[in-house]
């Protein structure tokens, strides 16, 4: 197991973010801050109703300096791009760094589930991943953060005192207390350092 101190911004290829209740506002404090030279890919799972279009790419696309899209099955993960999990499907990362969707049963009552994205990412990305968990009203993401941490990835958790709903960050912190606890502004500031050149 590696300590968070081995973290190096230059080694991060894929940033993974999970959020639920209050997540649109929280992401709104982060994603529009990312510079056009932002280097890693950023992959986000937000809990949403399964039966309608998510509109997340439409909401964030115009506000962001880098491309924003819904992740597609078998799509190669491209640097400097923001991907959202499609509603009603789990989003997973394959060993050749492509996305793979699944319609398997919900995990933690959620599909897409944050745990599924984070766990599959931990299998293939190890310390080249960074896992971030934000506000939310259930425990999805806690096991995923733990899996990422065990695989040597850095893990950041929104300070529960600043989260709209504290359940999700608290559940993750109780499983992985050595995660870094940060405000949304601190998360945004640290991410903006991850750029070309």
């Amino acid at each position, binding site marked *: 197991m590696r300590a968070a101190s081995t973290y190096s911004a230059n080694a991060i290829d894929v940033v993974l973010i999970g959020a639920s209740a209050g997540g649109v506002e929280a992401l709104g404090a982060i994603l529009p801050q990312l510079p056009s030279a932002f280097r890693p890919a950023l992959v986000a799972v937000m809990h949403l109703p399964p039966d309608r279009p998510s509109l997340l790419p439409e909401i964030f696309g115009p506000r962001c300096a880098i491309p924003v899209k819904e992740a*597609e*099955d*078998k*799509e190669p993960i491209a640097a400097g791009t923001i991907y959202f999990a499609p509603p009603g499907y789990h989003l997973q990362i394959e*060993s050749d760094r492509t996305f793979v969707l699944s*319609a*398997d*049963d919900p995990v933690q009552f959620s599909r897409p589930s944050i745990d599924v994205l984070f766990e*599959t990412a931990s299998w*293939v990305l190890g310390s080249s991943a960074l896992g971030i968990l934000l506000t939310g009203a259930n425990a999805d993401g806690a096991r995923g953060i733990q899996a990422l941490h065990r695989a040597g990835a850095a893990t950041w958790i929104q300070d529960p005192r600043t989260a709209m709903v504290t359940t999700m960050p608290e559940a993750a912190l109780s499983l992985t207390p050595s995660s870094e606890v940060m405000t949304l502004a601190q998360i945004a500031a640290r991410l903006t350092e991850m750029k070309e050149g």
Partner: protein
Amino acid sequence: MITSDFDMELKLLLEAIYHKYHYDFRDYAMVSLHRRTEQALIKFGCSTVSQLQDLVLRTPTALTELLRYFTVQVSEMFRDPSYYRSLREEVVPLLKTYPSLKVWIAGCSTGEEFTSLAILFREEGLLDRTLFYATDINPEALRIAQTGVYALDRIAGFSDNYRAAGGKVSLSDYYTADYGAARFDRSLRSQVIFSDHSLATDSVFSEVHLVSCRNVLIYFNRTLQDRAVGLFHDALVRKGFLGLGSKESLRFCSRADAFIELVHKDRIYQRR
């Protein structure tokens, strides 16, 4: 590319299953199989995939159990109602021009998609001139599909979907309820052949006018996706139709050029 011990052992398990039982999962998407295998390990009380392999090679009943993890896809009737609405509005009018029809439901699992299509075809006056082939590799799923019986607690969701899909009457007109189960009308199954067929190892068996294959291709890697789409292409008549799951597409498929997109949002394609 990182190959973990787990994935290495999983590849060996898939080879073993192929050689012993002729089920070919070798070109399935590894990450999905990995998750399902982790669940199976808990169920079987095995601590490694190698242990599971040992068990499966020596106990054919364990293979039956494992197939449940590798293949069974719990679906819903009229899942993604707009798919069925688009079939009704964009595809059915063209199907009505044929004197007789054949439809292939590839990867039919426990039959929810077949039953939905049979109802739609009846309402459009097409059922009597249509032959459905509903295929899957899991014999247990096919057996359930053949009964047309679903748990009553799933029916409320099915009914909502049916209405949203443009259903013309009430879903309850098509089933009788007893002992917690909904038994769908036998006449809906008068025009169907349920059959064992593998998109990984079998070939085309008939010419068809419509292939509906939903949320199956996401479980395949690109090699097997190409093979499956090739089978659909070869089975379809010219101008025949292919319907996929709402987040599936031919975009990363080598045969994409052989089809045109008929209804983009519902992933309905037409063979050139």
